[in-house]
């Protein structure tokens, strides 16, 4: 029964908050350019409109093209179940750890790349090859940083990592956590196709990565693709805020009120992080494609220094 409640809350919160993040991001960017911009909840209307429409499917494409949107959305949602939005609720045991989370998301990404290749358009292939490059470059750093956290918590399950961080004082006063935090910020930017890596708001053939892959989609399929991407982005932001900026230890009572309070705090944290990410996007320029390995190397180095400090201290932070 407990697990059912957990899954319900998880799905409802993630699905409800995910489009809001994109909306806030666009609004902040519009305000920075002295435009008025669409309201933050515009993406809900967009998704609703797209879901009502029929999809146009090229007649040379195979079943992969039609299945991919559902697979992308389903894997993103399955991944979301492994990242508790509130550690107050996640006391019950969830099977699966962060390795499952990462590779569930990679499964969705694989089908997205395959579907982009399926129609045989030039943009699709270009987007797929770039996406493959970036994901293979960024994967070591996310795994190393999560392994570091797992080593400190002596568990690979995300709820237990969150619990252990909460019991260790302020995480961002600890050298190991600082390094891993910075690495995770770069990972978040790279994984969610934000500006130093990819520009989500253009359809310029030279720069687009994620947009190039979903260029052939329309209607329902496009809605699922975009919703999946938004959910994936929210998963990474949830990891960031719930591990490094924990607030649940401040609530020292339990019950329904505690869960509600921690969910409200969670949404506030997500909004702040969304605004900060939009600020980063405003302040930086897009890197050229062949400079992205340097950014990935920086993320890996941060994670690596983190894990090394942990080992030098002989697990002194546990």
């Amino acid at each position, binding site marked *: 029964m407990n697990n059912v409640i957990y899954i319900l809350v998880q799905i409802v919160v993630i699905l409800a908050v995910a489009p809001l993040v994109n909306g806030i991001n666009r609004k902040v960017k519009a305000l920075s350019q002295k435009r008025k911009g669409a309201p933050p909840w515009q993406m809900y209307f967009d998704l609703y409109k797209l879901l009502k429409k029929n999809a146009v499917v090229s007649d040379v494409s195979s079943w992969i093209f039609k299945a991919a949107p559902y697979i992308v959305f389903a894997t993103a949602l399955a991944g979301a179940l492994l990242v508790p939005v509130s550690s107050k609720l996640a006391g019950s045991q969830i099977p699966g750890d962060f390795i499952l989370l990462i590779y569930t998301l990679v499964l969705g990404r694989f089908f997205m790349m395959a579907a982009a290749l399926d129609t045989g358009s030039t943009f699709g292939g270009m987007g797929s090859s770039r996406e493959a490059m970036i994901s293979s470059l960024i994967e070591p750093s996310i795994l190393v940083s999560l392994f570091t956290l797992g080593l400190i918590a002596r568990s690979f399950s995300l709820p237990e990592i969150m619990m252990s961080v909460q019991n260790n004082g302020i995480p961002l006063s600890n*050298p190991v956590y600082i390094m891993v935090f910075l690495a995770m910020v770069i990972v978040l930017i790279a994984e969610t196709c934000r500006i130093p890596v990819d520009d989500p708001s253009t359809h310029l053939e030279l720069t687009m990565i994620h947009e190039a892959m979903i260029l052939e989609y329309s209607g329902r399929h496009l809605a699922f693709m975009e919703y999946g991407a938004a959910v994936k982005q929210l998963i990474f932001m949830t990891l960031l805020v719930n591990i490094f900026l924990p607030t649940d230890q401040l609530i020292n009572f339990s019950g329904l009120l505690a869960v509600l309070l921690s969910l409200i705090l969670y949404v506030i944290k997500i909004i702040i992080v969304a605004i900060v990410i939009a600020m980063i996007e405003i302040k930086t320029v897009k890197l050229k494609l062949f400079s992205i390995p340097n950014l990935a190397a*920086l993320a890996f180095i941060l994670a690596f220094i983190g894990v090394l*400090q942990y080992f*030098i201290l002989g697990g002194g932070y546990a």
Partner: protein
Amino acid sequence: MLEFVKILSILILLSAFVLMGNKRINSYIETFRAQSLLIALMAGINGIIMLKTEGRFDLLAVCVLILVLKVIYIPGLLHRTYAHVKYEVEKDFILNIPILISVCSALVVFTYFCLRTLSSIIPNSIILQLVNSVSVIWIGLFFMISRKKAIGQIIGFLVIENGLFVTTMLGTEGMPFIVDLGLFIDLITAILIMGILVFRINDQFDSIDTDQLNKLKG
């Protein structure tokens, strides 16, 4: 306080990595400036601790010296020297940047394995900082090797000096003041000579690529 020193020592190591990933001469100099600022902060904290426990204020004096010399004077000097030299972005390294950075992380691991045997006589938190600062020395050396222009070699030299300073500060809780003073005077002389040399090299060869010094010019 001690936690803060730990974070600073990791940030100094990180700045060495950032230096390794840089391509522009201006960002070399600015990264060096940032690293020196971090070291000055570290010396300041250690100096305050020293003043409280032993009543010595020489580390604080060293902190001020670092601020004046390494944060303000030397970067300014390098900026002025390189205002006349036309190279802006370095393109040729011995390897590409991600590989250079991987080699640097291997150097950190190597340092760790070298210093691990000390763990029976030195407390762990000091070893952490020693590993970081000795790695900075190694990375500075490797930086000198990996860059072909003279500026890279000057900055590498300065980074080695930074690493040495942090190592001695951790190892000896502050050297005698006269030794520090001597080191700084040496440093200024070296930088001045190097600056003049770069000027001459640029005059003679129309380039500051040190590889070209292998060729004879008739």
